């Protein structure tokens, strides 16, 4: 299987700042790949270079086998991009803009089908100005997928969603991934990355500092688990690399149900925050 995205030594310089600093990255076809990183880490710059919106200073970039800096309409036909915000649609209806957008592609999805898949049937013929934030975002996604892309870029897709809308959105992304769409996702929500992504990468200072499956990122799966329980009215906490053995021992000792038992591992968020603080050395702040 060939890589959908291949990046080697990517560098982008803005004045004195190396926004992207020798970044290497490979995203496989059919993968859901999440890019994490604080604001200003180079995440958006990297993604916009992959999308062909920004130029680069050096490095090799191949997206679906082409260089985004020079790729033409045939390449764009296979790419879907959900931007962070898209304005200028207030006076139209979702059906109108989807219909004209669909005509730009070689093998578009049926407009009604796309409207249904993002759950906008009730608003299909209403002015976009009257849509809620979540509905607008779903329209953005609809515009990104109406061309039946092989590769879909999603830039912070669920910012401002309520929990139910987020769950619905995740289901939509899962079904696209299931159909074989390669998805590159940037997000600030660690649970979103954990839920959707096959692999996650953390960008800091313009480089990838960690790259793995969500469960293994930053040695997460090897880290100690924390077991807490209540015994004789007191709360006990123990860190262990063998939580199963500890719980079995507790069960034998206490006999029956262990009161208020929890076993937790560092969340993806804990791991991520540890990575970020470990990498924010003083000179990066100066």
């Amino acid at each position, binding site marked *: 299987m060939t890589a959908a995205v291949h990046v080697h030594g990517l560098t982008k310089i803005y004045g004195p700042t190396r926004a992207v600093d020798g970044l290497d990255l490979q995203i496989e076809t059919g993968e859901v790949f999440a890019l994490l990183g604080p604001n200003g880490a180079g995440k958006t710059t990297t993604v916009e270079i992959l*999308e062909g*919106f920004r130029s680069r200073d050096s490095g090799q970039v191949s997206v679906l086998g082409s260089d985004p800096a020079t790729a033409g309409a*045939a390449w*764009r036909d296979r790419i879907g991009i959900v*931007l962070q915000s898209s304005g*200028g649609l207030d*006076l139209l209806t979702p059906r109108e803009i989807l219909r004209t957008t669909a*005509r730009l592609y070689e093998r578009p999805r049926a407009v009604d089908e796309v409207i249904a898949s993002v759950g906008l049937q009730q608003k299909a013929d209403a002015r976009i100005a009257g849509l809620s934030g979540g509905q607008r975002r779903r329209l953005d996604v609809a*515009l990104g997928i109406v061309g039946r892309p092989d590769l879909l870029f999603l830039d912070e897709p669920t910012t401002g969603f309520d929990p139910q809308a987020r769950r619905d959105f995740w289901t939509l992304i899962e079904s696209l991934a299931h159909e074989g769409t390669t998805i590159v996702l940037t997000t600030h929500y660690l649970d979103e990355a954990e839920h959707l992504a096959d692999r996650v990468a953390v960008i800091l200072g313009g480089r990838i500092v960690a790259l793995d499956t969500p469960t293994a990122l930053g040695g997460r799966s090897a880290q100690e688990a924390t077991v807490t329980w209540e015994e004789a009215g007191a709360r006990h906490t123990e860190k262990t690399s063998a939580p199963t053995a500890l719980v079995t021992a507790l069960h034998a000792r206490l006999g029956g149900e262990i009161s208020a038992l929890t076993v937790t591992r560092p969340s993806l968020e804990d791991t991520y925050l540890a990575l970020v603080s470990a990498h924010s050395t003083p000179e990066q702040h100066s």
Partner: protein
Amino acid sequence: MTRLLSLGWDRTLLELKMYFREKESVFFSFLFPIMLLALFSTIFAAQFDGPAMTAAGVDAGRFFLPGMVSAGVLLTSFQTMALSVASERDDGTLKRLRSTPMPPVAYFLGKVGLVAITSLAQLALLLAIARFAYGVALPSSAGPWLTLAWIFALGVLGGTTLGIAYSSLGTARSIGAVVIGPLLVLQFISGVYLAFSDIPTWLQQIASVFPLKWIAQGMRSVFLPDSFAASEMAGAWEPGRTALVLAVWAVVGLVLCVRTFRWFKRGTT
């Protein structure tokens, strides 16, 4: 080619929908000259009661019609383009379009289609109101209509390309002031709202650099009696020079448009 035209027509329909749903643009570019024609024809009616004007068959409606037609050309082409392209660049519309396989020419065809249809509709409305509400006698021979056609076409073409190029000078927030202020001045010194002969010579000379003065002069040659040519700067209608100036501006506009057009906001690439 067929696909390109069909995509361009799609864009035109979309542009028309957005244009007519935006009440401000309908009022300030589409209806404004029509309203001014009605207003001026009413306010200044008494000033055209004198024997000279009556003898020439020129009343206030006929006198102001060429100016309003010219203002209409400027507003529906230049102003609409400058305002809409600047805000589309700022609100991400252009970036979104750039992310699709749309051929860039289709976008411009959509703009040309929008301007062509709105400016022709506006011209038709202006002529109908002048004729039927104010009894203005319209040209009865083919010559003036032919002149109207080429001046109108060149004016709209130049206005569209220059407007798209001009959009790069402002952001969505500033473009209103950047466009409307200078345009208002230009309309006054080009003799759209005043008799051009009342404007001091040095201002007339400044106005002569820009296309609007030539559009207005050309429109006067269409709608006013030939005796009025004497009050032009050269004492004649100068159709040849008008064609030359408008054609040069249209070419300049096209070149500027191609060389300066940006899909992205400044500082985002």
